[in-house]
Protein backbone atom coordinates (compact mmCIF):
# COMPACT_ATOMS: atom_id res chain seq x y z
CA UNK A 1 0.00 0.00 0.00
CA UNK A 2 1.25 3.50 -0.79
CA UNK A 3 2.31 5.87 1.96
CA UNK A 4 -1.11 7.25 2.97
CA UNK A 5 0.47 10.37 4.52
CA UNK A 6 1.30 11.56 1.01
CA UNK A 7 -2.40 11.47 0.09
CA UNK A 8 -3.66 13.06 3.31
CA UNK A 9 -3.57 16.69 2.14
CA UNK A 10 -5.42 15.80 -1.05
CA UNK A 11 -8.24 13.75 0.48
CA UNK A 12 -10.90 16.48 0.30
CA UNK A 13 -9.96 17.19 -3.36
CA UNK A 14 -10.24 13.46 -4.16
CA UNK A 15 -13.72 13.38 -2.55
CA UNK A 16 -14.86 16.49 -4.43
CA UNK A 17 -13.57 15.10 -7.74
CA UNK A 18 -15.37 11.77 -7.23
CA UNK A 19 -18.65 13.48 -6.33
CA UNK A 20 -18.27 15.74 -9.35
CA UNK A 21 -18.03 12.66 -11.57
CA UNK A 22 -20.55 10.37 -9.87
CA UNK A 23 -23.23 12.87 -8.79
CA UNK A 24 -24.00 11.45 -5.35
CA UNK A 25 -22.24 8.83 -3.25
CA UNK A 26 -22.31 7.37 0.26
CA UNK A 27 -19.31 6.91 2.54
CA UNK A 28 -18.56 3.24 1.96
CA UNK A 29 -19.03 3.67 -1.79
CA UNK A 30 -16.35 6.40 -1.81
CA UNK A 31 -13.83 4.14 -0.03
CA UNK A 32 -14.50 1.32 -2.50
CA UNK A 33 -14.30 3.59 -5.54
CA UNK A 34 -10.93 4.98 -4.43
CA UNK A 35 -9.65 1.47 -3.76
CA UNK A 36 -10.82 0.36 -7.21
CA UNK A 37 -9.39 3.37 -9.07
CA UNK A 38 -5.99 3.09 -7.38
CA UNK A 39 -5.99 -0.74 -7.71
CA UNK A 40 -5.82 -1.09 -3.93
CA UNK A 41 -2.89 1.34 -3.56
CA UNK A 42 -4.91 3.83 -1.53
CA UNK A 43 -7.29 2.71 1.19
CA UNK A 44 -9.29 5.48 2.85
CA UNK A 45 -10.17 4.62 6.44
CA UNK A 46 -13.38 5.64 8.19
CA UNK A 47 -11.24 7.71 10.56
CA UNK A 48 -10.10 9.88 7.66
CA UNK A 49 -13.14 9.81 5.37
CA UNK A 50 -16.00 10.88 7.66
CA UNK A 51 -14.22 13.82 9.33
CA UNK A 52 -13.33 15.05 5.82
CA UNK A 53 -16.93 14.65 4.60
CA UNK A 54 -18.35 16.42 7.69
CA UNK A 55 -15.86 19.26 7.25
CA UNK A 56 -16.82 19.73 3.59
CA UNK A 57 -20.49 19.67 4.62
CA UNK A 58 -19.89 22.31 7.33
CA UNK A 59 -18.09 24.48 4.75
CA UNK A 60 -21.21 24.37 2.59
CA UNK A 61 -19.50 22.43 -0.23
CA UNK A 62 -21.60 19.27 0.19
CA UNK A 63 -25.30 18.62 0.55
CA UNK A 64 -26.74 15.56 2.27
CA UNK A 65 -29.69 13.33 1.37
CA UNK A 66 -30.90 10.53 3.65
CA UNK A 67 -32.63 7.50 2.12
CA UNK A 68 -33.76 4.13 3.46
CA UNK A 69 -31.84 1.36 1.68
CA UNK A 70 -31.68 -2.36 2.62
CA UNK A 71 -33.40 -1.89 6.03
CA UNK A 72 -31.09 0.95 7.09
CA UNK A 73 -30.59 4.66 6.56
CA UNK A 74 -27.99 5.78 4.08
CA UNK A 75 -26.48 9.24 3.86
CA UNK A 76 -25.71 10.37 0.32
CA UNK A 77 -23.35 13.29 -0.29
CA UNK A 78 -23.48 15.53 -3.35
CA UNK A 79 -21.84 18.80 -4.39
CA UNK A 80 -23.56 22.11 -3.77
CA UNK A 81 -23.26 24.91 -6.30
CA UNK A 82 -20.43 26.36 -4.21
CA UNK A 83 -18.89 22.87 -4.06
CA UNK A 84 -18.84 22.60 -7.85
CA UNK A 85 -16.91 25.88 -8.12
CA UNK A 86 -14.54 24.87 -5.32
CA UNK A 87 -13.83 21.51 -7.04
CA UNK A 88 -12.51 23.36 -10.10
CA UNK A 89 -10.27 25.55 -7.90
CA UNK A 90 -8.93 22.69 -5.82
CA UNK A 91 -8.22 20.51 -8.85
CA UNK A 92 -6.29 23.37 -10.44
CA UNK A 93 -4.31 23.78 -7.20
CA UNK A 94 -3.59 20.04 -7.06
CA UNK A 95 -2.44 19.96 -10.70
CA UNK A 96 -0.14 22.91 -10.01
CA UNK A 97 1.25 21.08 -6.98
CA UNK A 98 1.88 17.92 -9.04
CA UNK A 99 3.68 19.98 -11.71
CA UNK A 100 5.87 21.62 -9.05
CA UNK A 101 6.70 18.23 -7.54
CA UNK A 102 7.65 16.88 -10.97
CA UNK A 103 9.93 19.86 -11.53
CA UNK A 104 11.51 19.31 -8.13
CA UNK A 105 12.02 15.59 -8.58
CA UNK A 106 13.04 15.65 -12.25
CA UNK A 107 14.79 18.98 -12.82
CA UNK A 108 15.79 19.67 -16.42
CA UNK A 109 19.40 20.74 -16.29
CA UNK A 110 20.46 23.47 -18.68
CA UNK A 111 23.92 24.51 -19.74
CA UNK A 112 24.48 28.17 -19.13
Amino acid at each position, binding site marked *: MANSKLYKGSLSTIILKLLDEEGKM*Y*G*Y*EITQKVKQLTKGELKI*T*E*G*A*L*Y*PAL*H*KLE*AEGLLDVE*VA*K*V*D*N*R*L*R*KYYKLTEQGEKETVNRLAELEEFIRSMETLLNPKWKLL
Partner: protein
Amino acid sequence: MIQHLDKDELNFIDNYLRNSGFDYLDVRLELIDHVASAIEKSMEEHDLEFYDAFKSYMVVNKKGLERNYELFKKRLQKTSFLVLGKEIITPKFLIFFCVAVTVIYMWNKFSTDPFPYAQSVWIAIISAGLVYFFGTLPKKRYRISSLEMLAWPLVASSYAMNLYFNLWVDDSYFLLKWPLVANILTAFLITAIAAFLRLFFLKRKQTNTLLAKT
Protein backbone atom coordinates in the same frame (compact mmCIF):
# COMPACT_ATOMS: atom_id res chain seq x y z
CA MET B 1 -25.62 -12.27 -5.17
CA ILE B 2 -24.95 -10.02 -2.18
CA GLN B 3 -26.80 -10.96 1.01
CA HIS B 4 -28.25 -7.98 2.89
CA LEU B 5 -28.28 -7.88 6.68
CA ASP B 6 -31.63 -8.29 8.40
CA LYS B 7 -33.07 -6.03 11.12
CA ASP B 8 -31.70 -8.15 14.01
CA GLU B 9 -28.18 -8.03 12.60
CA LEU B 10 -28.43 -4.27 12.08
CA ASN B 11 -29.70 -3.88 15.66
CA PHE B 12 -26.72 -5.94 16.82
CA ILE B 13 -24.34 -3.47 15.10
CA ASP B 14 -26.30 -0.51 16.53
CA ASN B 15 -26.14 -1.90 20.10
CA TYR B 16 -22.45 -2.69 19.76
CA LEU B 17 -21.65 0.85 18.61
CA ARG B 18 -23.86 2.42 21.30
CA ASN B 19 -22.20 0.30 24.02
CA SER B 20 -18.80 1.34 22.66
CA GLY B 21 -19.58 5.01 23.33
CA PHE B 22 -21.00 6.14 19.98
CA ASP B 23 -23.80 8.15 21.60
CA TYR B 24 -25.04 10.42 18.84
CA LEU B 25 -27.75 8.74 16.79
CA ASP B 26 -27.16 10.83 13.66
CA VAL B 27 -23.46 9.88 13.54
CA ARG B 28 -24.16 6.25 14.50
CA LEU B 29 -26.67 5.82 11.66
CA GLU B 30 -23.97 6.66 9.12
CA LEU B 31 -21.54 4.26 10.78
CA ILE B 32 -24.12 1.45 10.85
CA ASP B 33 -24.49 1.74 7.08
CA HIS B 34 -20.71 1.79 6.60
CA VAL B 35 -20.08 -1.22 8.87
CA ALA B 36 -23.06 -3.14 7.41
CA SER B 37 -21.89 -2.52 3.82
CA ALA B 38 -18.36 -3.72 4.70
CA ILE B 39 -19.72 -6.83 6.46
CA GLU B 40 -22.04 -7.70 3.58
CA LYS B 41 -19.11 -7.50 1.17
CA SER B 42 -16.93 -9.62 3.44
CA MET B 43 -19.72 -12.24 3.84
CA GLU B 44 -20.01 -12.46 0.06
CA GLU B 45 -16.29 -12.49 -0.78
CA HIS B 46 -15.11 -14.83 1.98
CA ASP B 47 -18.30 -16.85 2.43
CA LEU B 48 -18.55 -15.93 6.11
CA GLU B 49 -21.44 -15.94 8.58
CA PHE B 50 -22.54 -12.56 9.95
CA TYR B 51 -20.90 -12.89 13.36
CA ASP B 52 -17.51 -13.97 11.92
CA ALA B 53 -17.54 -11.15 9.37
CA PHE B 54 -18.48 -8.66 12.10
CA LYS B 55 -15.68 -9.84 14.38
CA SER B 56 -13.06 -9.66 11.60
CA TYR B 57 -14.19 -6.16 10.68
CA MET B 58 -14.06 -4.83 14.23
CA VAL B 59 -10.63 -6.32 14.96
CA VAL B 60 -9.17 -4.29 12.09
CA ASN B 61 -11.35 -1.14 12.08
CA LYS B 62 -12.62 -0.37 15.59
CA LYS B 63 -9.76 2.03 16.38
CA GLY B 64 -10.42 3.97 13.15
CA LEU B 65 -14.11 4.28 14.00
CA GLU B 66 -13.32 5.59 17.48
CA ARG B 67 -10.83 8.10 16.09
CA ASN B 68 -13.43 9.33 13.63
CA TYR B 69 -15.94 9.80 16.43
CA GLU B 70 -13.53 11.75 18.64
CA LEU B 71 -12.61 14.03 15.74
CA PHE B 72 -16.27 14.59 15.01
CA LYS B 73 -17.00 15.61 18.63
CA LYS B 74 -14.09 18.06 18.63
CA ARG B 75 -15.24 19.63 15.38
CA LEU B 76 -18.79 19.89 16.70
CA GLN B 77 -17.65 22.18 19.50
CA LYS B 78 -15.59 24.32 17.13
CA THR B 79 -18.30 24.75 14.51
CA SER B 80 -21.26 25.44 16.81
CA PHE B 81 -20.51 29.18 17.11
CA LEU B 82 -19.78 29.38 13.40
CA VAL B 83 -23.22 27.94 12.61
CA LEU B 84 -24.97 30.46 14.87
CA GLY B 85 -22.84 33.32 13.51
CA LYS B 86 -23.75 32.40 9.92
CA GLU B 87 -27.43 32.38 10.90
CA ILE B 88 -27.17 35.84 12.51
CA ILE B 89 -25.74 37.40 9.36
CA THR B 90 -28.52 36.10 7.09
CA PRO B 91 -30.73 38.91 5.69
CA LYS B 92 -33.74 38.06 7.89
CA PHE B 93 -31.76 38.33 11.12
CA LEU B 94 -29.94 41.47 9.97
CA ILE B 95 -33.39 43.01 9.42
CA PHE B 96 -34.48 41.62 12.83
CA PHE B 97 -31.45 43.29 14.43
CA CYS B 98 -32.18 46.66 12.75
CA VAL B 99 -35.83 46.48 13.87
CA ALA B 100 -34.75 45.68 17.46
CA VAL B 101 -32.33 48.65 17.49
CA THR B 102 -35.07 50.94 16.11
CA VAL B 103 -37.71 49.74 18.63
CA ILE B 104 -35.36 50.31 21.60
CA TYR B 105 -34.31 53.70 20.23
CA MET B 106 -37.93 54.83 19.68
CA TRP B 107 -38.92 53.53 23.12
CA ASN B 108 -36.19 55.57 24.79
CA LYS B 109 -37.08 58.63 22.73
CA PHE B 110 -40.84 58.67 23.25
CA SER B 111 -41.50 56.77 26.49
CA THR B 112 -41.16 58.36 29.91
CA ASP B 113 -39.57 55.16 31.31
CA PRO B 114 -36.25 53.85 29.88
CA PHE B 115 -36.34 50.60 27.86
CA PRO B 116 -36.52 47.60 30.30
CA TYR B 117 -33.23 46.10 29.09
CA ALA B 118 -32.79 43.44 31.73
CA GLN B 119 -36.38 42.16 31.77
CA SER B 120 -36.73 41.79 27.99
CA VAL B 121 -33.51 39.84 27.56
CA TRP B 122 -34.05 37.58 30.55
CA ILE B 123 -37.45 36.60 29.19
CA ALA B 124 -35.70 35.62 25.93
CA ILE B 125 -33.05 33.56 27.80
CA ILE B 126 -35.64 31.72 29.89
CA SER B 127 -37.75 30.99 26.79
CA ALA B 128 -34.71 29.61 24.94
CA GLY B 129 -33.73 27.49 27.96
CA LEU B 130 -37.23 26.07 28.30
CA VAL B 131 -37.46 25.28 24.59
CA TYR B 132 -34.09 23.52 24.69
CA PHE B 133 -34.93 21.54 27.83
CA PHE B 134 -38.43 20.42 26.85
CA GLY B 135 -37.45 20.04 23.21
CA THR B 136 -34.68 17.55 23.92
CA LEU B 137 -36.26 15.82 26.93
CA PRO B 138 -38.37 13.26 24.98
CA LYS B 139 -35.35 12.37 22.84
CA LYS B 140 -32.79 11.79 25.60
CA ARG B 141 -32.49 8.16 24.47
CA TYR B 142 -31.47 9.41 21.05
CA ARG B 143 -28.74 11.97 21.47
CA ILE B 144 -28.57 14.10 18.35
CA SER B 145 -25.32 15.95 17.74
CA SER B 146 -26.88 18.80 15.74
CA LEU B 147 -29.26 19.58 18.62
CA GLU B 148 -26.64 19.37 21.32
CA MET B 149 -24.26 21.61 19.41
CA LEU B 150 -26.78 24.41 19.89
CA ALA B 151 -26.38 24.14 23.66
CA TRP B 152 -22.94 25.77 23.39
CA PRO B 153 -24.09 29.08 21.90
CA LEU B 154 -27.02 29.10 24.33
CA VAL B 155 -24.75 28.73 27.36
CA ALA B 156 -22.31 31.30 25.93
CA SER B 157 -25.13 33.79 25.24
CA SER B 158 -26.40 33.37 28.80
CA TYR B 159 -22.94 34.05 30.23
CA ALA B 160 -22.44 37.03 27.91
CA MET B 161 -25.75 38.55 28.99
CA ASN B 162 -25.08 37.84 32.63
CA LEU B 163 -21.73 39.60 32.36
CA TYR B 164 -23.26 42.48 30.42
CA PHE B 165 -26.01 43.15 32.95
CA ASN B 166 -23.79 42.66 35.99
CA LEU B 167 -21.38 45.22 34.61
CA TRP B 168 -23.68 47.80 33.14
CA VAL B 169 -27.39 47.62 33.79
CA ASP B 170 -27.33 49.15 37.25
CA ASP B 171 -24.90 51.75 36.10
CA SER B 172 -27.14 54.58 34.99
CA TYR B 173 -24.03 56.58 34.05
CA PHE B 174 -23.22 54.04 31.32
CA LEU B 175 -26.80 53.98 30.01
CA LEU B 176 -26.99 57.77 29.99
CA LYS B 177 -23.58 58.33 28.46
CA TRP B 178 -23.69 55.58 25.84
CA PRO B 179 -27.38 54.81 25.23
CA LEU B 180 -26.68 53.71 21.65
CA VAL B 181 -24.06 51.15 22.80
CA ALA B 182 -26.53 49.71 25.35
CA ASN B 183 -29.18 49.70 22.61
CA ILE B 184 -26.98 47.87 20.07
CA LEU B 185 -25.68 45.31 22.59
CA THR B 186 -29.19 44.48 23.78
CA ALA B 187 -30.54 44.23 20.22
CA PHE B 188 -27.62 41.94 19.26
CA LEU B 189 -28.19 39.63 22.21
CA ILE B 190 -31.93 39.40 21.47
CA THR B 191 -31.10 38.65 17.80
CA ALA B 192 -28.65 35.90 18.85
CA ILE B 193 -31.35 34.26 20.97
CA ALA B 194 -33.90 34.54 18.13
CA ALA B 195 -31.39 32.96 15.70
CA PHE B 196 -30.75 30.19 18.24
CA LEU B 197 -34.51 29.49 18.48
CA ARG B 198 -34.87 29.33 14.70
CA LEU B 199 -31.94 26.91 14.37
CA PHE B 200 -33.32 24.85 17.23
CA PHE B 201 -36.72 24.35 15.58
CA LEU B 202 -35.05 23.62 12.23
CA LYS B 203 -32.81 20.94 13.75
CA ARG B 204 -35.78 19.50 15.67
CA LYS B 205 -37.67 19.12 12.42
CA GLN B 206 -34.69 17.40 10.76
CA THR B 207 -34.34 15.11 13.77
CA ASN B 208 -38.00 14.11 13.68
CA THR B 209 -37.71 13.35 9.95
CA LEU B 210 -34.65 11.20 10.66
CA LEU B 211 -36.35 9.35 13.53
CA ALA B 212 -39.47 8.74 11.43
CA LYS B 213 -37.32 6.95 8.84
CA THR B 214 -35.63 4.61 11.35
